[in-house]
């Protein structure tokens, strides 16, 4: 199974929704990663045939299907909302795409329904109606509906976004297992970088209707080519500090460190540091120091997010392991290892990344 998206553009009411998108897959999972309004859903609707593109082609298995009606395409779609037929039982819901395809004998339909229901862990619920299920069970039913019929292209549009945390973790692991060796093309859209990182599938980073970058999500996390890609792949969000390159050093809010390989005239840069690289207790020599005031400490159980206000009005978030009972208003000093910062130019291009692979926390 192959999918080629060749120069697809969509414009509506003078706005560019998608701009010259190219994407290729020869089976298996591809993650579309991007914030809201990046064009993930629009691209999926084009691939499904629900939205005709203004330019470009969609080619499935070597055949141009751009103008082919959605009813004639071999696609399945899982939405962020839990979409099932409200008056049908779970069994009938899963069976409906098979029955409408009209190519499966009765016994085969029954076998497939029970198989995917078992796979999704809803084998016990086949007699219920969607209204009697929890959100997680409804979404499992919707995914089972999409899996029941073998299709060339399976589209999942933020399927886990409306689920609560625990269900999301569990379903994410199930999906990863199921799609790893999928012969068909699986496109999985998400705004959650942790999802993209944990699937470890080739990722396409979208922003404002354009492909910003593509590659292995772990590589993109460790060495983002632009500030936008770095921000898309960071959750919790990056801390951004104003910096100035001068005489081979970077000056940043009163601190200063050598600028590796940055020469040329004085210029403004953005110093980006991930929250888990910010310390409040001194961790070693050569650290940058930022006097600050503690505004808020959020304890999540295994970690504490400390919100700091630096002198000059810049906000900084520190992600500390363990529980730390900081009080709002307390003075503190934030420490950052200069070897762990990214430096981006004012145009967003990366000027410098930390050496070696970064150690990423779990979560």
């Amino acid at each position, binding site marked *: 199974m192959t999918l080629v998206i060749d120069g697809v553009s969509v414009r509506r009411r003078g706005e560019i929704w998608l701009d010259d998108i190219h994407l290729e897959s020869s089976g298996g999972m591809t993650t579309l990663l991007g914030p809201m309004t990046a064009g993930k859903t629009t691209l999926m609707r084009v691939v499904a045939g629900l939205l005709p593109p203004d330019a470009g082609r969609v080619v499935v298995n070597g055949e141009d299907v751009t103008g082919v009606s959605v009813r004639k395409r071999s*696609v399945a779609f899982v939405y962020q909302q839990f979409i099932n037929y409200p*008056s049908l039982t779970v069994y009938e819901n899963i069976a409906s795409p098979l029955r*409408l395809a009209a190519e499966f004998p009765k016994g085969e339909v029954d076998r497939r329904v029970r198989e995917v229901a078992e796979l999704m862990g809803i084998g016990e619920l086949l007699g219920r109606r969607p209204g009697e299920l929890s959100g997680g069970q409804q979404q499992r039913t919707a995914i089972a509906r999409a899996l029941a019929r073998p299709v060339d292209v399976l589209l999942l549009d933020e399927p886990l976004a409306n689920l609560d945390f625990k269900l999301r973790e569990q379903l994410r692991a199930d999906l990863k297992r199921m799609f790893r060796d999928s012969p068909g093309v699986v496109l999985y859209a998400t705004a959650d970088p942790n999802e993209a990182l944990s699937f470890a599938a080739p990722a396409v980073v979208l922003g404002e209707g354009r492909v910003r970058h593509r590659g292995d999500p772990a590589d993109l996390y460790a060495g983002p080519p632009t500030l936008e890609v770095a921000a898309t792949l960071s959750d919790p969000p990056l801390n951004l500090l104003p910096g100035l390159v001068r005489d081979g050093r970077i000056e940043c809010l009163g601190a200063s460190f050598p600028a590796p390989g940055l020469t040329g005239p004085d210029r403004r840069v953005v110093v980006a540091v991930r929250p888990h690289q910010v310390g409040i207790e001194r961790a070693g020599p050569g650290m940058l120091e930022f006097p600050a005031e503690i505004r808020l400490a959020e304890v999540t159980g295994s970690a504490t997010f400390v919100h700091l206000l630096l002198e000059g009005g810049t906000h900084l978030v520190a992600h500390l392991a363990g529980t730390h009972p900081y009080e709002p208003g307390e003075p503190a000093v934030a420490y950052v290892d200069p070897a762990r910062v990214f430096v981006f130019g004012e145009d967003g291009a990366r000027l410098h990344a930390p050496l070696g692979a970064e150690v990423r926390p779990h979560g």
Partner: protein
Amino acid sequence: MTATLPSRRTEPAAEDRAQGKRRANRAWFLVLPVVVSVAFTAVIPLMTVVNYSVQDIFSPDDRLFVGLEWFRSVARDPEVRAAFVRTLLFSAQVLLLEIPLGVAVAVVMPRRGLGVPAALVLVALPLLIPWNVVGTIWQIFARPDIGLGGWAVNNVLGLDYNYTLDAGDAWITVLVMDVWHWTPLVALLAYAGLRSIPDPYFQAAQIDGASAWATFRHIQLPRLRGVLTIAILLRFMDSFMIYTEPFVVTGGGPGNATSFLSVLLSKIAVGQFDLGPAGAFSLLYFLAVQIVCYVFFTVLTRTGR
């Protein structure tokens, strides 16, 4: 403060209960305006009718308690029974025509674009016309000599149609008038229900390859149950109590062909001024509406669950 704390700790439950009771009593004052207005608009008039229904009133000073006599005579009156059957038949026909027609109109109404306001205004137009004006419009429209509709049926379709002479024609005229007047209400309610269905449902059905009928049957219809329950109750109550339009168009005739319960009731109460029988009639009428509504509501809220 410190002195009161221990005593509180010893008897918290009793004190809380007393305080809660006082607060609950005060809350009654907030309900009072509703109680007063409902009393004057509904309860007292209804009790007046109950009062009439158990007495034979000759003059304000000369009245006789007759118990359930009027109820018995009204229930046995062949004219009332015939009107009851007639009204029930009319309501059944109204529901069978207006509900499917209203849903059909709602389904074909545009979902987006400039067509939406245009369709809404067009559909809502009959609802904005006062009831007796609707009657007058149809009275003239359906006349075979000077009415466009009546003339067309006689001279274009070549049917012999005259609602003032033929009982069947009169019945059809009143029925068509009601359908014209009230189908828009059903359509608007159903349209609101349909609009609340998110687009992905329709897209999902398209991806499955579901037919238009299957999409309607399995996505739209289940989502319409709530609004259709309201539409059916409203249309039943309204059609079962229809008065103004047949009064204006046919005056209950020809003969008794369009004498619905309300037409007959007003004849007894206002025309003949028989307050006792009219009171008993009203209460039985009221009871019939309540019972049918209860049955409809129970059945509709239980199906498809």
